[in-house]
């Protein structure tokens, strides 16, 4: 990476971007290899060492104290540099002016919008003397106007001779701001790209690898009986966004609900309409953070949609409780099994009850039936190949794959009408992966409707009957899994292609919706 450049690092989820950054920032130690800063070999034992070498990091999740002012947040931990009084305030003003950040040192952080907070984070790093800035997915939380303003800031930094390392998987943004691009996949660099001569599609190919999956031939089990119908589902983020002062007034985009004088809320879900038939697997592709989580949580009743209707098997469940939806036949394989799928410190048989406490065999007339629940847990362990010495051990003591098999077994045991499967094979070894796929396929044959969300494009293409692409809270494209390639899907995921994805296709044509 060269002085005075913006260097982008792109790769899929789990490709190793974050690990690399943690090493550069001294949070993790490498097994092998060297880091050279300004011609000197360095090794970092802590973020403190990295800061001493002029490397600063702006995390994806801001680390600011809401109830303190900008000034207090900036000096916190670096009181020795310029004190905590007027000298520090002068320094902050000076940095802010130098790089066009437009920060008021005495504003309370809780009164700032997300974009302002991000600039405070950047200023914090600059205040500590950083010459190399690492930005971890800085645009994930911003609306388009804010993204433009951030890029203007980055150009200022670059002009002053600073180096910016920019992590993102939004390829359009990367191409517009980066001077150099490094692509990593499965923990290794697979190539570099020159943004001037690269298209998002080529970049996506580099990211996901060129190898084509072999979508297996199989008979279609799709019926014409709709199981889940979602009509015009919308959900706005309940937060305040202030459009930064530096940005030019822009026409409102459809990404935001914008009215004069009303705070701008990012649309998490924007007019989602889907229909899943009995025996159909509908796969949703998308870069993480584009609304998939919100869609699932809205379907599960953990969030209330602002507009729209959800119908399950002909019954309106738009405002039904989560429990009611589960009883009505929605199975749920959550994307974060530790947070949403398991009671880690409870025994397996209690985890078998979780989510289905009102249904047999777990309870009868309000009373639990531990005996039956235990017997059924043993059955799940047997049928779903959960490797455990017993059902009294805590869920935490199983490996991730076995935890997942338990969850899949539990959800399938209640013969759901609709299965919401989010990353069903994430962190699961290859053998278990195939097994989980088989189970989903088998249930599909018996009329199960599945909403599949996955970051694994091969899984999506291999399992789905219908594919949709989600981008910034909207379903922007659809594709036929029989003909689509991961590369084509990948470019649609970054917003580069929309509409119906044909194969062979010209992504440029897709722009005109």
């Amino acid at each position, binding site marked *: 990476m060269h002085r005075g450049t913006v260097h982008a690092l792109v790769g899929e989820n789990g490709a190793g971007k974050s690990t690399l950054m943690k090493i550069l920032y001294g949070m993790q130690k490498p097994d092998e290899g060297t880091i050279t800063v300004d011609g000197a070999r360095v090794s970092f034992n802590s973020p403190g060492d990295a800061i001493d070498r002029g490397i600063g990091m702006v995390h994806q999740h801001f680390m600011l104290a809401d109830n303190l002012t900008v000034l207090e947040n900036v000096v916190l931990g670096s009181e020795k540099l310029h004190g905590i009084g007027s000298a520090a305030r002068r320094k902050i003003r000076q940095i802010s002016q130098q790089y066009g950040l437009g920060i008021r040192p005495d504003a309370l952080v809780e009164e700032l919008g997300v974009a302002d907070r991000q600039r405070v984070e950047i200023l914090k790093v600059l205040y500590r003397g950083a010459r190399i800035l690492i930005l971890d997915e800085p645009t994930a939380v911003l609306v388009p106007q804010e993204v433009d303003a951030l890029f203007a800031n980055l150009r200022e930094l670059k002009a002053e001779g600073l180096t910016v390392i920019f992590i993102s998987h939004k390829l359009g943004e990367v191409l517009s701001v980066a001077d150099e691009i490094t692509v990593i996949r499965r923990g290794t660099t697979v190539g570099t790209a020159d943004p001037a001569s690269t298209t998002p599609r080529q970049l996506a190919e580099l990211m996901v690898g060129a190898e084509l999956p072999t979508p297996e031939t199989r008979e279609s089990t799709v019926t014409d009986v709709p199981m889940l119908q979602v009509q015009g589902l919308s959900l706005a983020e309940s937060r305040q966004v202030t459009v930064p002062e530096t940005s030019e007034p822009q026409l409102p985009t459809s990404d935001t609900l914008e009215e004069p004088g009303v705070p701008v809320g990012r649309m998490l879900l924007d007019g989602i309409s889907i229909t899943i038939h009995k025996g159909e697997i509908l796969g949703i592709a998308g870069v993480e953070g584009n609304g998939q989580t919100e869609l699932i949580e809205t379907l599960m009743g953990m969030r209330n949609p602002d507009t729209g209707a959800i119908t399950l098997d002909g019954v309106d469940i738009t405002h039904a409780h989560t429990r009611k939806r589960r009883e009505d036949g929605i199975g749920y394989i959550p994307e974060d099994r530790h947070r949403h799928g398991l009671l880690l410190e409870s025994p397996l048989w209690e985890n078998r009850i979780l989510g289905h406490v009102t249904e047999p065999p777990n309870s009868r007339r309000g009373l639990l039936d531990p005996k039956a629940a235990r017997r059924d847990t043993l059955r799940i362990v047997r049928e779903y190949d959960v490797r455990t010495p017993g*059902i009294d051990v805590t869920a935490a003591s199983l490996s991730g794959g076995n935890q997942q098999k338990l969850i899949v077994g539990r959800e399938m045991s209640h013969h759901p009408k609709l299965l919401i499967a989010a990353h069903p094979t994430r962190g699961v070894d290859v053998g278990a992966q195939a097994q989980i796929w088989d189970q989903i396929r088998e249930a599909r044959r018996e009329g199960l409707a599945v909403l599949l969300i996955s970051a694994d494009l091969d899984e999506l293409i291999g399992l789905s009957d219908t594919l949709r692409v989600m981008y910034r809270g909207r379903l922007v494209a659809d594709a036929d899994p029989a003909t689509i390639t991961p590369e084509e899907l990948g470019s649609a995921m970054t917003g580069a292609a929309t509409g119906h994805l044909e194969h062979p296709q010209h992504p440029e044509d897709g722009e005109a919706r």
Partner: protein
Amino acid sequence: MRKFDKDRLLLGLAGPVLALAVAFVLTSVVLLASDRDPIEPFRLMFDAASFSDVQVLIINQTGTYYLAALAVAVGFRMNLFNIGVDGQYRLAAMVAALIGAAVELPGPLHIALIVIVAMLVGAFWAGIAGILKTTRGVSEVVSTIMLNAIATSLIAWLILPSNFGEQPPGSNDLTTGDIPESGWFPALEVTGGEIYGFTFVAFALGFVYWFVLNRTRFGFDLRATGASSTAAQASGVDAKKMVLTAMLISGAVAGLAGMPTLLGDTHTYSFNFPVGVGFTGITIALLGRNSPVGIFFAALLVSFLDKTSADLDQHGYEKEIATIMQGLIVIAVVVSYELVRQYGLRRQQRKVGEELAAGHALKTAKEAAK
């Protein structure tokens, strides 16, 4: 799988034993630091406990503490910290005493009325905190502490002779008037005194507590919420309803905590009515790990410290030694339980790995097919 059960039992005992040992040693250190005999006070306390009248006092106290601790434990099981048990208990006892003194009914009905009023008042007072939390997001810790203070003032105002209280002739105390004998709970005569009848109700409630938590859907939801609020929500638990229900139950049980004393001993609420019971309940619930059996022994221990330390003054020791020890127990409990918990989790993870490596997994269909 008995092996894991035994492990769990041993680890379960390790926490309190470790905590008590540490608290005992630290109390001795405090005694040594103040130039006292580090063992003598404990010997005196054990001597005191050999008298049957002290034993009766201990049992009666245990009943009260048991109820207060159950009230706290209901909250703890779903990560709600009801510090307001003390206020709920006092206000409930006071209002129940007022109503009990004001009416005259046949025995069982009279007692039932007093008990129900106490539960309703306790639930109401805790419910305020519950509603504040579910509608406005106010931390129950803060609101229940404040409600304690409000309860104190409210009781002081209600008990004024110009309102509902009475001033017995020749006394500075204010009372709520005496409950007629039909509202007295029958006691068990033993050598050394009377054991309040309500003490047995208290212990029976321990069984109800166990049953509701471990054998009902509601109890499962409550425990799931305590174990992981996110997983519970995803499983279909209505978090707000759960918070409110748990607070109401906790308050109702807190309201019962005053009943052994009111129905069995004082038959009136006055300024001499015991205070701080709710706070001691927190210690006991912590020490007893929210389990009905654990809480029983913890309540017994704390009652023992309370009642046997009363005589220490006569032997030249301050009775506050017991209070110091109680405080040290709380600190030791919190630290040792966390240590034991983490050790237990790690140990089980390792053991499960070993068991699997040794081929002791349950047979699965896939293997059977081989």
